[in-house]
């Protein structure tokens, strides 16, 4: 056997499946069923990492989720993962792990110098220094950052898959230990839909590490029986290797299931991790408990381990973590470690009990085996750095120090109930004097803690708790319970009480006694913080960082609080634990994001003509979730050249654009007219049937929120168009007003955005092109009108209007036929030299005409008056936002006002967003703050005008026509002339209705 600490027999590992793995480059072996931690211990490797602040050598402390020390970096390259708990990582063939936070190597770590300087680095030392000289702070900071931080992030994108799963149940049971299994059985037997989730690789909880019996059989046989029964029930879902990690309001819990370890090959096509989103009517928390460490000088040395972990490695994995063991304890339970290890043939040097007497049944058994038991002790220290070599103990009454040679110290100060999930859900906690820990105070409405998670120490108690809670939960869901006798015989020696106060017996000795292994917080740090006034748990936590590490203080917090109480000379009952927050166990960002990454990151919306655009080389831009063609460059063409070409085609010939993304809302009903008048600030009721009009919508505060065109389809029927971005919000807005403010109006609104695709044909030759294809008289259509027609055989709504300020049509057709119509139009247009134009050209064209664009000319602080729209406000009817327009600030004459802006040089295109000044300046540094009187909202080169054009908002702009202003661009003042906001067709021939 290569694994020198592997026992000949025993354990739940599969000895027929040896596995090879590497740690820090060393090749080692283990078995299927091992964790990395058990395999390392089997190979005699205790030193596994360096601590966070002082870079102290650290070994495996625990056996599961509580582990603070054995954090390793696993796998390489893009699959590498930092801060993985070796105690939970299931071994697989070829696994590669390495230690963290050390340089150059684990054995020789220069960071360890910090340990020597530790007296200069007490809690919060950085707040007291590094202030002078100020310019050196960045250097100090860089050094601090390098020293901190544990593992390394991968450098490349994660190649693995993750997904989500929603689940609903009557009863969620967290934890498949004795209590959880009993609860799940009881609930499921009542017919409840049950989810049983457990974070370990197999069910059984703590029983997996013990040698208990239930009903005269091995407890693990009972576990397999229970699991078999559960698995056979159709309404039960068992989630193995699933940590329930977040407990949110209204019975919502988040779990994370692990299918593959980092770097483990993927033979089945399942995700690496799955995030469970569980909605539970009732939750039974049977999450067990965590063993509490003792506090004594150098209690962080490798080879010092929790007592349960020491025996569980033996019982569960067949691993002897040492060959000469001292058990140190403040409770009876740890005597089991002596018994179990001795039974496995491990040498027990002594049991050192901190309590004044050790006379219970378990101590008696230990003594009976001839093992020395020392009582009334305090631990004064240990020998050994990279591995414990001896324990030094003394009677608490004083006297000689005895040094007991050993290579493993198994310690216990009792058990800490896992109340995390209970507390996350606002469950209140209460200090239990007897157990020395916080336990749930009563129950929450739909949540209950059972078994060790509520402080129940005995197996029998855990089973009873579980059965009862499972039944009650099912009953609460309306399912009748079968009343069963659930009393199960277990063999459990009676235990003497814990002496949790005794664990600080050595505290007066000084030396470095760790209370938070993860963040290197010592007894002295806690006391210093208290002296300095950081003497409430929440301040203490933040000042010392105790409980803020990767393990969130699972093992340490209770000792920190007890020390705090002691330092304040107050009872523990006056102390409240710090807030428990999700996640219980760190949750990968990959699992949270699930499948919604890369192309699935957010929904992508495409119009029916998308493939056509793509085929023509369109460059797309994101507009909200939509993909819209921005321009269609010919080979080698620049954006500007393409836009020029597209614009000129619209001005001189004919061009086609896809405007399907605009919102369309069907509004009908007897009160449609009144409704639409209230929604728009312009008057829409005056429209004749078949006529259209442009309008603005305001928020209640008078600011513009969307614009669009309303078409009257019938006496009681309108079609309202919105901006692309406003499609959903305007629809929701209308519905809100109808339902909440104007329920008396008989109107139905229906979004038809997706039903229609819309095609714009623009340019002087659009009529020529379209004329022959339609079954109506286009000539007879006035500007700003709408007709139902068939276009090339496709039923359509033809609008005579354009957003380009020139002649044009828009044709709305059912989306399913849009592609066909588009290609027909394009084909028919070829003899007119038709081309497609994109959003960029649209922007230029509308700016030439001075049409505003919501989001360019508006920003939530712009009123209709600011855009020169006051003449078209229908002030004699009510509309949303009307009253606001009369507020003092909105009546100011010097409000910013829409104007045109022309540069001196026709080819100088101002950047959009450039600020405008009254006077030129040399440099803002000398003149700051410089008064800004407005900014450029839209700016383009207009091929049609053969010059640059711009729109802007300028303070008091209406009175400034002809003035010279200065646009501030990249440190240069550019002269601009204020004009009317219109660069084309000043007569307004094609103005919107």
């Amino acid at each position, binding site marked *: 056997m290569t694994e020198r600490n592997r026992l000949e027999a025993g354990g739940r590992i599969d000895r027929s499946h040896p596995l090879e793995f590497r740690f820090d480059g060393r090749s080692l072996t283990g078995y299927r069923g091992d964790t990395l931690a058990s395999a390392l211990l089997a190979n005699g490797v205790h030193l596994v990492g360096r601590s966070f602040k002082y870079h102290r050598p650290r070994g495996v402390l625990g056996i599961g989720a509580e582990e603070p020390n054995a954090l390793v970096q696993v796998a390489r390259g893009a699959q590498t993962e930092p801060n993985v708990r070796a105690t939970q990582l299931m071994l697989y063939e070829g696994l590669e792990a390495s230690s963290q936070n050390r340089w150059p190597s684990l054995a020789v770590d220069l960071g360890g110098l910090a340990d020597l300087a530790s007296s200069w680095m007490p809690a919060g030392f950085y707040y007291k220094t590094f202030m002078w000289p100020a310019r050196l702070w960045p250097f100090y900071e860089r050094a601090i950052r390098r020293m901190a931080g544990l593992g390394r992030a991968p450098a490349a994108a994660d190649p693995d898959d993750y997904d989500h799963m929603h689940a609903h149940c009557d009863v969620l049971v967290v934890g498949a230990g004795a209590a959880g299994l009993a609860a799940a059985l009881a609930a499921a037997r009542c017919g409840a839909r049950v989810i049983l989730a457990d974070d370990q690789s197999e069910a059984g909880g703590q029983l997996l590490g013990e040698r208990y019996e239930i009903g005269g059989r091995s407890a693990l046989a009972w576990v397999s029986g229970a699991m078999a029964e559960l698995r056979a029930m159709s309404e039960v879902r068992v989630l193995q290797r699933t940590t329930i990690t977040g407990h*949110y*309001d*209204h*019975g*919502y819990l988040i779990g994370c299931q692990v299918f593959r370890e980092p770097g483990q090959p993927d033979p089945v096509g399942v995700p690496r991790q799955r995030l469970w*989103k569980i*909605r539970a009517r009732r939750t039974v928390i049977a999450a067990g408990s965590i063993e509490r460490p003792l506090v004594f000088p150098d209690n962080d040395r490798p080879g010092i381990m929790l007592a349960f972990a020491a025996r569980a490695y033996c019982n569960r994995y067949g691993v002897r973590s040492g060959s000469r063991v001292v058990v140190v304890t403040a409770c009876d339970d740890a005597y089991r470690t002596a018994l179990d290890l001795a039974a496995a043939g491990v040498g027990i040097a002594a049991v050192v009990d901190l309590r004044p007497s050790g006379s219970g049944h378990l101590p008696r058994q230990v003594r009976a085996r001839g093992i020395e038991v020392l009582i009334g002790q305090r631990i004064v220290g240990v020998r050994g750095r990279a591995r414990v070599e001896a324990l030094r103990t003394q009677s608490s009454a004083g006297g000689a120090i005895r040094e007991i040679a050993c290579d493993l110290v198994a310690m216990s100060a009792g058990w800490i109930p896992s109340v995390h999930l209970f507390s996350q859900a*606002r469950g209140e906690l209460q200090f239990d004097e007897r157990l020395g820990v916080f336990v749930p105070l009563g129950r929450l409405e739909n949540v209950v803690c059972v078994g060790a998670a509520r402080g129940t120490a005995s197996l029998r108690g855990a089973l009873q708790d579980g059965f009862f809670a499972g039944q009650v939960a099912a009953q609460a869901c309306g399912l009748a319970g079968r009343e069963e006798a659930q009393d199960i015989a277990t063999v459990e020696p009676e235990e003497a009480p814990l002496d949790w106060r005794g664990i600080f017996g050595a505290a007066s000795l000084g030396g470095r006694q760790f209370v938070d292994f993860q963040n290197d917080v010592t007894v002295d740090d806690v006391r210093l913080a208290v002296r300095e006034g950081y003497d409430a748990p929440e301040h203490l936590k933040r000042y010392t960082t105790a409980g803020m590490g990767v393990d969130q203080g699972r093992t340490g917090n209770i000792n920190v609080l007890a020390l705090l109480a002691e330092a304040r000379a107050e009872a523990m009952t006056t102390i409240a634990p710090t807030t428990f927050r999700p996640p219980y166990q760190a949750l990968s960002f990959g699992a949270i994001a699930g499948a919604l990454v890369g192309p699935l990151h957010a929904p992508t919306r495409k119009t029916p003509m998308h493939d056509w655009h793509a085929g023509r080389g369109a460059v797309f831009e994101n507009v909200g979730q939509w993909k819209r063609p921005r321009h269609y460059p010919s080979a080698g063409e620049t954006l500007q050249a393409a836009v020029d070409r597209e614009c000129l085609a619209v001005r001189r010939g004919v061009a086609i654009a896809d405007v399907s993304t605009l919102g369309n809302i069907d509004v009908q009903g007897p009160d449609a007219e009144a409704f639409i008048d209230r929604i728009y600030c312009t008057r829409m009721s005056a429209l004749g049937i078949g006529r259209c009009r442009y309008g603005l919508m305001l928020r*209640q*505060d008078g600011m513009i929120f969307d614009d669009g065109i309303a078409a009257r389809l019938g006496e009681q029927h309108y079609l309202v168009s919105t901006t692309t971005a406003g499609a959903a919000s305007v629809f*929701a807005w209308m*519905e*809100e007003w109808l*339902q*909440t*403010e104007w*329920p008396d109006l008989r109107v139905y609104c229906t979004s038809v955005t997706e039903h229609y695709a819309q095609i714009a044909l623009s340019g002087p030759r659009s009529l020529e092109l379209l004329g022959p294809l339609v079954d109506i008289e286009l000539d007879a259509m006035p500007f700003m009108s709408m007709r139902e027609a068939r276009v090339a055989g496709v039923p359509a709504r033809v609008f005579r209007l354009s957003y380009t300020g020139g002649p044009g049509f828009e044709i709305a057709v059912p989306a399913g036929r849009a592609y066909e119509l588009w290609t027909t139009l394009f084909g028919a247009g070829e003899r007119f030299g038709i081309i497609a134009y994109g959003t960029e050209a649209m922007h230029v064209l509308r700016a030439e005409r001075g049409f505003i664009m919501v989001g360019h000319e508006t920003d939530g602080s712009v009123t209709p008056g600011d855009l020169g729209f006051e003449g078209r406000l229908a002030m004699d009817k009510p509309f949303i936002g*009307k*009253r*606001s327009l*009369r*507020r*003092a600030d909105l009546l100011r004459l010097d409000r910013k006002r829409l104007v045109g802006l022309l540069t001196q040089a026709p080819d100088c295109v101002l950047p959009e967003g450039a600020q405008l000044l009254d006077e030129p300046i040399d440099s803002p540094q000398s003149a700051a703050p410089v008064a800004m009187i407005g900014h450029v909202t839209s700016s383009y080169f207009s091929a049609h005008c053969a010059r640059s054009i711009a729109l802007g908002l300028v303070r008091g702009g209406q009175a400034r026509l002809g003035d010279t202003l200065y646009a501030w661009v990249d440190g240069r003042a550019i002269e601009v002339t204020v004009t009317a906001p219109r660069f084309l067709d000043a007569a307004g021939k094609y103005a919107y209705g």
Partner: protein
Amino acid sequence: MLLIPCPWCGPRDETEFTCGGEAHIVTPRAPEDLDDEAWGEFLYLRTNPKGRCAERWVHTHGCRRWFNVLRDTVTERILTVYEVGARPPQAGDD
């Protein structure tokens, strides 16, 4: 994740809904008669209560109906839901 009982569709995840802010804010009948102060009060001032709070929600990704919810802003408990326009019911003590 709140579980909101839509009066029509039954309990659904919060993500299907949109909160529309405080309920029972009465739009003035004659806004033109109000001075700036009174109008500003209507537009902006809110009770923002800690504890029991009546608010409007809409089932955006469900039936699209608006309704009122009486919720405790400290415990997040939903005490009751009721129709738009109805007066807030006097829900019993929790």
